[in-house]
């Protein structure tokens, strides 16, 4: 058994060695994707282009607007002179948010009444709009608290009443600054490995089928499992190499903390790699040409990403889709990889995810091996 498998390993190694482009294809896209995600993929919003319109012209209104001007989240691009001008800034896309302070703002504040601040956001990018609204709320809240304290200090009425302040003391564990990069970079490891391994496996076998070498192999006495082990173990090693490459780059370049155990991370990675190999193998048994394999990979990988928790929270999905995430290996791997990177949790916490990954890998590998007949039908 082993002699034949080793033969295939030697062959795979030689083909990989001769294909000089292959080594770059494995390293460069991985690093590139890591950099792109590390730098570009973030839910945080900075420099929201903002239009302001101050119809009150009081010290209070100017103080409030200054709070926005001095905040890195907002960038004042238009100082409007009229309501239509402010609205036009949103309409023609110069601004994503517009802040309008109506006349009488300071007066209402002085009387201790609710003073309205009109905020218009461009909802076409609902995510950015929502986040921007959140920031507006925070800034305004700070402003009003400050104002109340000032008012209380300055007025006789204030001296007689007690100012009650509730402050929320927020502690974000594991990622104290809620850095998106910390959230994304470990996830990129899962995404990249899945993509590389599913593609490599599916294409490698379908290419042999297309070129005709698979038919030549099939007429030999080799057993299907010998062929499958011979064919997939090299990809397993390539996948492991990529996991380590991206993890090390993430730690050294992006300073993502790695507080957990490398052993637990590699164990989870191995289980995840097996699942990915099985998906690739399954696709290869269903496709006759590389074109079909390409289309199938696209069809399979997209939902796997979307339903993994890589970017979109699983808890916000409709229940039916949440069920689907339970058969998604990436879902478990992301828990494992984020858990080991940021939280430093061990097998005592992660074992259910490990077990789920192992079960998925076992089922998928069994199905794909059974499907891989040594016949052309």
């Amino acid at each position, binding site marked *: 058994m082993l*002699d*034949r498998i*080793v*033969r*295939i390993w*030697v*062959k795979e190694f*030689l*083909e990989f060695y*001769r*294909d000089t482009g292959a080594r770059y294809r494995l390293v460069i896209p991985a690093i590139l994707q890591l950099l792109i995600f590390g730098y570009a993929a973030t839910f945080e919003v900075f420099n929201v282009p903002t239009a302001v319109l101050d119809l009150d012209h009081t010290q209070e209104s100017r103080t409030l607007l200054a709070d926005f001007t001095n905040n890195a989240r907002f960038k004042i691009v238009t100082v409007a002179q009229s309501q239509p001008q402010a609205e036009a800034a949103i309409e023609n896309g110069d601004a994503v948010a517009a802040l309008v302070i109506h006349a009488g703002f300071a007066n209402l504040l002085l009387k201790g009444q609710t003073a309205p601040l009109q905020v218009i956001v461009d909802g076409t990018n609902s995510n950015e709009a929502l986040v921007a609204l959140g920031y507006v709320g925070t800034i305004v809240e700070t402003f009003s608290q400050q104002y109340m304290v000032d008012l209380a200090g300055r007025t006789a009425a204030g001296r007689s009443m007690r100012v009650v302040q509730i402050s929320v003391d927020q502690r974000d564990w594991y990622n104290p600054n809620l850095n998106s990069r910390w959230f994304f970079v470990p996830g990129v490891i899962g995404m990249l490995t899945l993509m590389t391994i599913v593609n490599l496996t599916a294409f490698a076998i379908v290419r042999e089928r297309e*070129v*005709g*070498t698979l*038919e*030549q*192999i*099939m*007429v*030999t*006495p*080799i*057993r299907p499992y010998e062929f499958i082990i011979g064919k997939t173990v090299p990809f397993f090693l390539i996948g492991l190499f990529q996991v380590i490459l991206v993890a090390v780059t993430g730690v050294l370049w992006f300073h993502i903390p790695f507080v957990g155990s490398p052993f637990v991370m590699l164990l989870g990675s191995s289980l995840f790699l097996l699942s990915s190999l099985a998906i690739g193998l399954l696709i290869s048994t269903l496709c006759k040409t590389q074109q079909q394999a390409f289309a199938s990979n696209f069809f399979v990988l997209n939902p796997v990403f979307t339903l993994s928790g890589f970017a979109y929270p699983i808890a916000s999905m409709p229940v039916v889709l949440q069920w689907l995430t339970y058969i998604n290996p990436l879902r478990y791997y992301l828990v494992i990889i984020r858990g080991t990177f940021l939280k430093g949790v061990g097998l005592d916490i992660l074992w259910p995810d490990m077990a789920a990954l192992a079960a998925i890998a076992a089922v998928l590998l069994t199905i794909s091996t059974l499907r891989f007949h*040594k*016949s*052309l*039908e």
Partner: protein
Amino acid sequence: MPGERQPDIQISVDHLIKRFGAFIAVNDVTFDVRRGEIMGFLGPNGAGKSTIIRMLCGLLRPTSGRAMVAGVDVALNPERVRQSIGYMSQKFSLYGDLTVAENLRFFGGIYRVPQKEIAERILSVVEMAGLAGREDSLVSTLAGGWKQRLALGCAILHRPPVLFLDEPTSGVDPISRRRFWELIHELSDDGVSVLVSTHYMDEAEYCNRIAMIDQGKLVALGTPAELKNRALPGTLLLVECDEIGHAIELLGSAPGVRDVAAFGNTLHVLVDREAGQTDRLIAWLAAHGIAGARVRPIEPSLEDAFVQLVTGNREAA
């Protein structure tokens, strides 16, 4: 069953049928191949030659019927058959990015050629295939004839008693083809049974026996000489004359003529086996305005036989 009585029979095919949905690719085919015999499959593309070979290799499952190869029922025990066969597919299917020696070592390993013999066998295959000095060339850089001999080499490295060659010489130059057939005859002399498909008529002449296959059916089976005699129940005459186009029409309506076919600047005319036909044709043409025709009897070619047998089969169907 002849296959069970004669230990000599290496391939025994009994009422083999293969359907793909409603399409019958192989329709009730029966034949035997003896030890050391070269059996040629002759037929047009899509006739079912490759399908039969693939069933014999265990790559396709027969719909019904039985195939025994090297004493093993292929459908029941495809894995055991595979150790006893060598197979060369229509399409060149070795690894182009490996060298000649690496390909041979790979297949030697997969077939479990004993470690101490592998070097010697690779050497003899390289020598046989005329690949000496090219052991370290990448296969993708070899010319067609070399690739094809290497593919044969990879197929016989484990010394199988039965060899299946599916159109091995398509797209190969004539000199390489000739050389390839010499190799096949050497193997047959060593007792290897060879089943080879082709659509080159001249190649079929190299075979001990020919199975003519058309539309999934075995149309005729026999030695090249037998097939020629059987196919043409009459005398074949070669006619050289002017106005070939006109002459075809004239001869077609001449008494005693069964068939007329153009071959280059000449006509092949199949006539009833009667004395005096030659003179009668010359006279018939002269009477209808084509003078000076030369007519002589010729030996029918395999192509003549093939056309006759296939036409007969299609008319019967």
